[in-house]
């Protein structure tokens, strides 16, 4: 062990400084990306198992013990499939759409704090950064729908764009509520403000905003019951109907990375992130990454639960919910929050 360090350490110091910084950051990015990719793969299995359980089926159980290797088999299958590019499709945009979809989904993870110290980029405007990046994911969908030169894909893309723009406003307002409570755009500071047990978490003063945020998150990721962008029964598969093989898999990855992202953000912004509900008492029940993981997995489960429970919304009902219910609710609650701020109750008390 010592001998390896003795060889590698001079080699590391011999590298120019900018290369050291580059490699160090690359390492940190890989440390976030690789577990995330693993998580995405196993969320797909979790989804099939959970929905199977709710529908009194077994779910995948053939590949590996209890079907645990199913995601790997799926990934291999998708990798070896041919990517078919439709005639008259715009080849460059057709192939760049999946990347535009997954890029923002992964880049947003840069500012997520995993515990008190572990964060890739401790931005002052972290919340804004996340909002900006999540709003960019829609380009992948729009361009995919347009570039595949197909009616169904274009319809799916238009539906998705209108829906994402509608729900983004409600989502942004909900985040304004969080930043009013936290007094900062920095995610670490927002968590720090929630320290001291469950009673200090933002879920209590911001309960309506939590519901608006989470439901808008479900709509933003185009998941059931808001999955009209895919709408199998009406427009086949929506924007990715012409994609196959890895190009399709990348859309799939982006969708699940976004689900994990929304779940992680919900637990960070409203449920105290890595904070323990009992306050900082130390040990396994004290603050730590495991709480963050637990809360995130719970919200991922809620995503799947919703999908197994509710029928798809009709398109005009989606629009009504977004514009006529969520936006007024958030505006009213921002006003209530301002009153609480002046009266110094909740997180603003002494």
């Amino acid at each position, binding site marked *: 062990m010592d001998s390896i360090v003795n060889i590698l350490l001079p080699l590391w110091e011999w590298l120019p400084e*900018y290369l050291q910084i580059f490699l160090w950051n690359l390492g940190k990015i890989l440390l976030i990306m690789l577990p995330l990719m693993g998580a995405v793969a196993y969320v797909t299995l979790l989804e099939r198992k959970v929905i199977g359980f709710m529908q009194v089926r077994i779910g995948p159980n053939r590949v590996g013990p209890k079907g645990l290797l199913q995601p790997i088999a799926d990934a291999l299958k998708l990798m070896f499939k041919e990517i078919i590019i439709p005639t008259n499709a715009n080849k460059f*945009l057709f192939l760049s759409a999946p990347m535009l979809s997954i890029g923002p989904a992964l880049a947003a993870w840069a500012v997520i704090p995993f515990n008190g110290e572990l964060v890739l980029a401790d*931005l*002052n*405007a972290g919340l*804004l*950064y996340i*909002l*900006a*990046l999540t*709003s*960019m994911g*829609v*380009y992948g969908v*729009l*361009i995919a*729908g*347009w570039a595949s030169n197909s009616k169904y894909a*274009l319809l799916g*893309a*238009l539906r998705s*764009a*209108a829906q*994402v*723009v509608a729900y*983004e406003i409600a989502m942004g307002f909900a985040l304004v509520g969080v930043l009013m409570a936290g007094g*900062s*755009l920095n995610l670490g500071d927002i968590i720090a403000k929630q320290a001291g047990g469950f009673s200090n978490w933002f879920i209590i003063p911001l309960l309506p905003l939590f519901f608006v945020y989470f439901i808008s998150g479900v709509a933003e990721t185009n998941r059931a019951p808001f999955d009209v962008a895919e709408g199998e029964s009406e427009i086949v598969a929506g924007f990715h109907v012409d994609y196959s093989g890895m190009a399709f898999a990348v859309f799939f990855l982006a969708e699940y990375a976004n689900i994990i992202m929304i779940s992680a953000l919900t637990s960070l912004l409203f449920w105290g992130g890595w904070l323990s509900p009992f306050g900082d008492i130390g040990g396994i029940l004290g603050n730590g990454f495991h709480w963050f993981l637990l809360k995130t997995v719970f919200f991922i489960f809620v995503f799947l639960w919703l999908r197994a429970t509710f029928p798809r919304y009709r398109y*005009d009902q989606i629009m*009504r919910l977004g514009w006529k219910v969520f936006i007024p609710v958030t505006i009213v609650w921002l006003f209530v929050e301002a009153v609480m701020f002046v009266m110094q109750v909740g997180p603003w008390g002494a």
Partner: protein
Amino acid sequence: MSFTEIVFYAFSAIMITAALGVISARNPVHSALFLVLTFFATSGIWLLLEAEFLAITLVLVYVGAVMVLFLFVVMMLDINITVMRQGFIKYLPIGILVALVLVTQMVLLVGPENFGLSQFAEPALKAADYSNTRELGRVIYTDYVYPFEVASVILLVAIVAAIALTMRRRPETKYQTPIKQMMVKKSDRLRIVKMQAEEKQ
């Protein structure tokens, strides 16, 4: 060349190329996408200026919302490009002339003799925990609160006007009022008629 300079020139090159793409692309959808790229590169340059709030807001508002709606509309329009391109060669000299005048004006006005380092000292680099957002908010809501409020009222009037211009009552459209649907009782819809049973002939 320092790292900052490399980043600056890279973003500037992308921005200018994309901006040229906006006006030269044959397909309107491509033009819109080039505009998105231009906004991106601009936001990168603003980040170099430590204006992180403005940079992220540019992406959030223009890339995330405005251009999505633009693309949304452009994708559905059936634009005949050959008609729009008619007379391109005929008007090209005038266009070049106007462009040249504009560029000369800008070089004369915005050049280094008016805005260079000799006129304004180089702004000091702020510490890592300096919050641009907080400072901007402080200035907007204290020193410039009245101009800011006036601007927001003007925006609100514009929104109301735009909606009032486009919204019209359409009696032929069918609406659903969920609250009414929820309140329906059996007695509102169902009438039970008592009849004598018919006898078998």
